[in-house]
């Protein structure tokens, strides 16, 4: 009788052990699956050079909106894969390319060429033409993309929504920009 009992507990222990092992083996891929968007490798791979168009699209001394297709998209992303940005061409090949997202809470800032200000419709953030914070709650200036000019075309390094945890491509703050 006692033998039988013991054997039953042996089976129970064995059963628990098998389930724990199987559970761990199962948990690793599930957790990895859930957290995969946050892997550093995937995040660095998300950034690449995208073309904004010929330089002639951006007159000197003006700030214009440009849109690009995000470098990494799914076929079913639809219009959400199109990202806007603000391109300021000071002169020649000197540019500033600002993210559309306000540095405060990500709302889309609008450029007002008459008063040379970017204004945010959500909480009233305002920025100067060079992206430096002018007023309101933003903790810093507008996020900026790295850019390069090749064959008379403007490219920016993009692919990720900029937030305070992930400042566009270069991580430079407009507040430190020398050109005011």
């Amino acid at each position: 009788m006692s033998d039988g009992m013991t054997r039953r507990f042996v089976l129970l222990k064995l059963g628990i052990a098998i389930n724990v092992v199987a559970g761990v083996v199962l948990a690793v891929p599930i957790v990895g699956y859930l957290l995969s968007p946050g892997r550093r490798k995937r995040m660095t791979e998300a950034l690449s050079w995208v073309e904004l168009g010929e330089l002639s699209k951006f007159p000197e001394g003006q700030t214009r909106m440009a849109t690009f297709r995000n470098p990494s998209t799914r076929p079913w992303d639809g219009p959400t894969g199109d990202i806007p940005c603000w391109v300021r061409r000071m002169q020649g090949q000197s540019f500033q390319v600002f993210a559309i997202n306000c540095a405060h809470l990500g709302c889309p800032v609008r450029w007002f060429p008459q008063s040379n200000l970017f204004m945010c419709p959500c909480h009233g953030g305002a920025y100067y033409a060079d992206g430096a914070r002018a007023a309101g709650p933003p903790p810093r200036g507008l996020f900026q993309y790295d850019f390069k000019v090749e064959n008379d075309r403007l490219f920016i390094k993009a692919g990720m929504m900029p937030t305070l945890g992930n400042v566009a491509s270069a991580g430079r703050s407009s507040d430190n920009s020398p050109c005011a």
Partner: protein
Amino acid sequence: MRMIRETWAWLDARLKIGDAIEQTAAHPVPRRSASWWYVFGSGALTMFIMQIVTGICLALVYVPSADEAFHSLQVLNFQQAMGWFLRAMHGWGSIFMVSLVLIHLIQVFLFGAFKFPRELTWMVGVLLLLMTLGMAFSGQVLRWDQDAYWGLGIVASLVGRVPLIGGQLVQIVLGGPIIAGETLTRFFALHVFVIPGLLIAFVGVHLLMVLKLGINDYPMPGRLVTRETYVAEYEKMVHEDGEPFVPDAMQKDVVFAGLLISGVIFCAAVFGPFGPGGTPDPTIIQTVPRPDYFFLWIFSVAALMPPGIESFALLVGPVVGILFLLVLPLWAGVGEKSWRRRPVGVLVVIFAVLAWAILTHLGNTAPWSPVMDAWSALPVPEKDLAGKTAVVRQGALVFQVKQCHNCHALAGEGGHRGPALDDVSTRLTKDQLFRQVLQGGGNMPAYGTNLSPPETTALVAFLETLHPANEPPARDASGPSPPK
């Protein structure tokens, strides 16, 4: 009738749940607890059941794809038979459900129902509140319009403020580097599988505890709760002065449930479904994103918080608030139940409700947001122009063209980000006006590089004329005194 009874007898001979149901239904509740104050919990449950039914109906047509979700909502609104009505029922149902959960929370707090032995019932209730709010937010995301898109932008920006791992958390929340297809499917899975499953499970636990521990007795000032005597006193009360839940005490719940469902039907039929607003195309930036009703107060807090403590307050504040609610019954688990003898508790409720109402009102009017089209859409009041000199009128033109009107109101029209300028010249002298326009400050951008000297001169000339008819403009106190 006989057939029904026989069928039930046949079923119960195999199911063996008849006795349990009977006992549960007939469990005695204190007579005074069969009160109209005690209908909000069952009301919230009624709404939840209705949300499940309407939600399943919507899921039959809705397509959780970033490309197609918006179109499928249009089909629901305009082509699918009664689709608009089901969307309206689900939308209004969510407003009713969140409101009822909050009212239930306040009632339970004021009636001391969180005290011994119902501490865990309260804690589970706090989790149910969080899940309900989670449903409200994820539901707003599934609407997949401009507000949903930029609402996610706000969530991502908030999460990005988390120290050290903020950048990675953003990607995990969004399901990728940008707000796109995988963001929608994430929130779809949360809204349709994860949170409802948890809600059903936790509602079950919540109800089980209400049954096992008994509904809270109607608080009487001076009848204190002690761990030693409460359970025996409660048993005595329900047996000496109690009534069965079914059918006596339940009557009011049934009436209230019927009124609630009728209320949702009325609102749905009269006011219709919510949105969707503009297409979720981020390149269309002519938008003024606003969150749904329940989250307007957070929107206000985000605008009004001093920048220096904002990240801390927005990230740590909610955690502290939730922890406070969770540990409340452990901290104040015994003693007085009646709100009549708990002035601090009543004050806390009044403060919280007032703060919520004021912040929601502010979120509705958003005085901190520039009125983006004021400069081109709103005129300068005629009284500020009539009979004025050419340079003053030129200044009014500068005021419009340089978008001053977006942040400054004239005669109540325009932005309220900055002060209204109807009497600005009584507050600032000419020199101070020049300084303020050119250098900014006090949360105003500097316009020194954006205005030519003639523009600035004209603008200040215009501002100098803005004062009430009988009140003279401010003057430099160190200068010569004005002519008598």
